[in-house]
C-alpha cells in the first residue's frame, strides 16, 4: 500500500494533516462497523472514500461529525486530539457535512436555512441583511450562484445541495464531508458539483467525498481510500488505477462491470400504455399523457431525474395508483385501474418496487414470509384455510440458495439483512415465479457492486427468456448498460424514445434536464 501525495495538495511540508483518524474501531452489538482504521486528510485535497454499502463509510463519517463515539481510537484536527461529542463540537472545529438527505427546511428561505442553528441577531431581531451579504460573497467566491431569498422547495435539487455546501462554508468549515452527493443529480449537475469541489480544494478546503461510483472517483479525487467490511483495504492514485481495479478492491474479488448481453430479439407488444394521466397524492399532475410500448424480449429503460413521474408511472402500471385517463394494456388485456392482485395474476407481471422498505418487504417478517408476500395465498403455501409453514420454509431455502441471499437462516427477520441482501430477497421473490412482464424500479438502489452485477445478469436472463422488461432507474449508467431502448421522462411526459445504439450519455443527460422539450417552461 503506497501513500500517494497528489500534486494539488497544499500540505506544508512537515505539518500534521488537516484531519487524521487513528486506529478507529467502532463496535455495534454483533457488528464490527469500523476496525482499526487510519486515515489522513491533507489541506487542499479531495479524498474519495470508496466502499460498498455496509462497508463502514457512514459510520466513520458519523464519528468524525460527532454523531457516534468510537469504541477505540482517536480523531485529530491539525495534529491535536479532539473530543467530538456532538455535531456542534465538529462544527466548532471547522468540520461540515452535507448529508445524502438534505437537512433543509423546505418552506424556509435560503438565508433562514443557512443561519438556522447559528442565527445572527441584531437588537433582538434576525439580521437577514448581513447574512445575505455574506452568502452572496461566499456564493461568488466559490462560484455557486444562489438567491438568498429564494424558498428552498422552489429550488432544483442541485441548487439545494449548493445551499447545504454554503451552509457549511458559512459556519467556516475547512473540512467538508460530502455523503453520496451525486446520487440526486443529473449528469450536468454532477459536473457542476465537481467544478465547485475543485474550486474549494484550490482555495485550501479539504474534502472527503463519499461514493460508490467509480467513474466519479476517477474524475475528481486526488486520492482514493477504499473500505471493505469495516477495514481500510487500500489507498490508490486515481491516475494509476482503473475502474476494474477499484471495483475488485471494493468487493474483494474480480467483478465484471460491463453487462454482457446479446442484441435483443423483440417480439409482440406485452405492455401498451396510451395517453396515461395521473396525479400524486398531493394532487400534482404527475403524468401528462404517457404512451409507451414494451415488447417481449426487450428491456426498455426509463431515464430521468427522480421526481419526473417515474414513480407514478410504475404505480399506475402495477395497480397501486389510479390513472385519471388513458389505458394500460398488458398482453392485450385492458388492465387500466385493475386491482394489484388481478394485474399480478392475469398480467403475469412482477414488480421490483422503487422503495423496498415502503412497498417491497415487511421488515418484521421472516425472510421466509417475505418471500411469499405476493403468493402466500396460493398452493402449496396455503390450503385456503391454513398456511403451510413447511412449504413456505422450503420455498425460502430454495430461493435463498438460488439468489444468494445471505442470511443466517430463513427465520431471521427481513430487517436484519443488509440492504443488498434485502434487495436480493425482493428480486428473488419477484423473479422466482413465472412472468411475462417485469417492472423493475431502481432494482439496484443502494446496494453493492457484487449484488448489482448479479441482479443485472438476472434481468438480462429474464429478457432472454422472452420477458418484456420495463426498467426505471435514476442511474444513467444502469440505463445505458441494460436498455435496448431508452425512454426519457421529463415533467410527466416521455420526451424521447431512442434505440440504445443511437443514444449517447450526453444526449440522454441533456434530455433528462429538459433539453429539446417544446412548450414547457424551463426547469427552475
Amino acid at each position, binding site marked *: 500500500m503506497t501513500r500517494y501525495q497528489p500534486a494539488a495538495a497544499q500540505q506544508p511540508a512537515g505539518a500534521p494533516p488537516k484531519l487524521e483518524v487513528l486506529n478507529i474501531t467502532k463496535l455495534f452489538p*454483533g*457488528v464490527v462497523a469500523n476496525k482499526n482504521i487510519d486515515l489522513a486528510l491533507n489541506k487542499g485535497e479531495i479524498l474519495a472514500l470508496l466502499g460498498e454499502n*455496509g462497508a463502514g463509510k457512514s459510520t466513520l463519517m458519523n464519528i468524525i461529525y460527532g454523531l457516534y463515539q468510537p469504541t477505540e481510537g482517536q480523531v485529530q484536527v491539525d495534529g491535536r486530539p479532539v473530543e467530538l461529542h456532538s455535531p456542534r463540537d465538529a462544527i466548532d472545529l471547522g468540520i461540515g457535512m452535507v448529508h445524502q438527505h438534505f437537512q433543509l427546511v423546505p418552506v424556509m428561505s435560503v438565508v433562514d436555512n443557512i443561519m438556522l442553528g447559528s442565527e445572527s441577531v441584531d437588537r433582538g431581531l434576525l439580521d437577514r441583511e448581513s447574512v445575505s451579504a455574506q452568502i452572496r460573497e461566499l456564493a461568488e467566491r466559490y462560484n455557486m450562484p444562489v438567491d438568498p431569498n429564494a424558498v428552498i422547495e422552489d429550488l432544483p435539487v442541485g441548487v439545494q445541495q449548493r445551499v447545504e455546501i454554503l451552509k457549511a462554508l458559512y459556519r467556516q468549515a475547512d473540512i467538508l464531508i460530502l455523503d453520496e452527493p451525486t446520487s440526486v443529480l443529473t449528469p450536468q449537475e454532477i459536473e457542476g458539483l465537481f467544478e465547485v469541489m475543485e474550486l474549494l480544494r484550490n482555495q485550501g478546503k479539504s474534502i472527503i467525498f463519499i461514493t460508490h461510483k467509480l467513474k466519479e472517483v476517477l474524475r475528481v479525487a486526488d486520492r482514493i481510500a477504499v473500505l471493505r467490511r469495516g477495514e481500510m483495504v487500500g489507498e490508490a492514485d486515481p491516475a494509476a488505477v482503473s475502474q476494474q481495479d477499484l471495483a475488485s478492491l471494493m468487493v474483494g474479488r474480480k467483478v465484471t462491470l460491463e453487462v454482457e448481453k446479446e442484441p435483443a430479439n423483440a417480439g409482440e407488444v406485452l405492455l401498451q400504455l396510451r395517453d396515461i394521466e395521473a396525479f400524486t397524492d398531493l394532487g400534482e399532475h404527475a403524468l401528462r399523457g404517457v404512451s409507451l410500448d414494451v415488447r417481449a424480449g426487450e428491456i426498455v429503460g426509463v431515464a430521468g431525474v427522480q421526481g419526473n413521474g417515474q414513480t407514478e408511472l410504475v404505480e399506475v402500471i402495477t395497480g397501486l395508483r389510479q390513472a385519471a385517463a388513458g389505458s394500460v394494456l398488458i398482453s392485450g388485456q385492458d388492465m387500466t385501474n385493475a386491482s394489484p392482485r388481478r394485474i*399480478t395474476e392475469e398480467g403475469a407481471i412482477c414488480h421490483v418496487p422503487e422503495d423496498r422498505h*415502503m412497498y417491497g418487504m415487511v421488515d418484521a*417478517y421472516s425472510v421466509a414470509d417475505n418471500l411469499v408476500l405476493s403468493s402466500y395465498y396460493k398452493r402449496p403455501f396455503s390450503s*385456503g384455510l391454513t398456511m403451510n409453514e413447511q412449504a413456505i420454509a422450503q420455498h425460502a431455502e430454495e430461493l435463498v440458495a438460488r439468489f444468494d441471499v445471505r442470511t443466517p437462516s430463513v427465520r431471521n427477520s427481513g*430487517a436484519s439483512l443488509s440492504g443488498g441482501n434485502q434487495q436480493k430477497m425482493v428480486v428473488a421473490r419477484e423473479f422466482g415465479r413465472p412472468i411475462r412482464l417485469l417492472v423493475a424500479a431502481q432494482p439496484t*438502489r443502494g446496494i453493492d457492486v457484487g449484488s448489482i452485477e448479479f441482479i443485472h445478469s438476472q434481468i438480462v436472463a429474464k429478457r432472454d427468456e422472452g420477458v418484456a422488461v420495463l426498467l426505471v432507474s435514476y442511474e444513467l449508467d444502469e440505463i445505458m448498460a441494460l436498455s435496448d431502448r431508452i425512454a426519457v421522462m421529463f415533467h410527466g411526459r416521455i420526451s424521447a424514445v431512442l434505440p440504445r445504439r443511437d443514444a449517447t450519455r450526453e444526449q440522454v443527460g441533456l434530455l433528462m434536464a429538459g433539453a429539446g422539450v417544446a412548450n414547457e417552461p424551463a426547469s427552475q
Partner: protein
Amino acid sequence: MATASTTTGFIRLLRALLIPFLALLAALLAGAAVMLLSGDDPLAAYSGLFQGAFGDGKSWARTIRKTVPFVLTGLSVALAFKVGLFNIGASGQFVIGSVFAVAVGINFDGLPAFIHLPLALLAGIAGGLLWGAIPGVLKVYTGAHEVIVTIMLNYVASLLGGWTVYAGGTQGQTPGPLWDRTAGAISETPDVLSSAQLPWLFGPPYRVHYGIFLALAAAVLIWWLIFKTPLGFEMRTVGHNMRAAHYAGIRVNYTIVLAMALAGGLAGLAGAIETLGLNHKFAPEFGGAVGFDGITVALLGQTHPIGVLLAAFMFGALDGGAAAMQFESGVPADIIQIIQALVLAFVAAPLIIRMIFRLRRQTHGDAGSAVSTSWSGP
C-alpha cells in the same frame, strides 16, 4: 431442528413476558408505596388480595368468573392491534352484544336450549360485529380515525343500551322495548329464559359458568386465525406495512373493516356471556368498564392471544381479590384500580421499566440490526 425452534420460541416467549411481568411488579410496588403513604400495611393488603383471589374454592371461582370477560375484550383489542388499529370501542361493543343477546334470550319461549343458547350467543356476537364494523367502514370510506369513532360509539352504545330498558317516565314517556314490565320503576330487562342461559360448570355458591371454555376457545381460535391462516397473514401484513400489503395484492380496506368487525364480535361475545351466564338480564349498569380494561389486558399481554390469557387471569385475580383485601386489611379496594392503571402506564412506557430495572436494550436479532441499518443505510 424442531427442538431448536421450540427452544428459541420458548426463550422468545420468556423475553416477551419480561417487560409485562416487571410492569406488574412495578405497579404492585408503587401500590405498596401509596398504601404506606396513607398509613396502611401493604403486606397485609397483598396477603388479603392473594387470599381473596386464590385462597379457597370460592376465591378461585371468583377469579375465573372475572377472568372470562377480560379474555374476550383483551382479544378484541389485541386482534385490532395486529391490524394496526386501536379499538377503544370494546366497551360499546360489549354493551351492544349484551343487548342483542338478551333480546334473543328473553324471547322465543319454547325453543330447545341447544338452539336458543347458541342463537343468543350468536346474536351477541352479531351485535358486536355490527358495532365494530361501523368505525371500520367510516375509516375506509371517509378516513375518520377509528380511535375517535370508537370513543364516540361507546357513548352511543351506552345510551342506546339504557334506552332499550328505559322504564318510562312519570309523565307517561314510552318505556324501552326490552324493559321488564313487572320491574316497576327499575330500568332492566326481564330474566333471560332458562333455555338461553349458559349452564353452570360449578353451580352456586361457586357460580362458574361454561363461559370460561368459550373464552379459552376464542383465544385459541384467534391465535390460529392470526398466525396460521392466510387471512391472518393478510391482517398482520396490513398491520405492519399497509403499503406493502397493497403492493402484495391484499384488499387493505376489506381487511380493516373485517378486523374491526371481528374485534367487535369478540367484545360482543363478552357481553353475551356476561348476560347469559351471570347477570341473566341487562341493565344500564352492566356496562363496559371491562371493555376499557381490555386495552390494558391486550397491552399487558403484548397483543398475543396467549399473553392476553395470562394478563386477563392477572386482572381477574386482582378484581377477584380486591373485596377480600379490603375486608381483611381495611385497605380500600379502590387501590386495585390504581394498580391496574399503573400497570397500563408501565406497559405503555417500557422505557421507564427498562430504566427502573436497568435493563439493557435487546442486543440480539432485530434490535441490533436496527442499529446496523442506520449505519449502512442507502
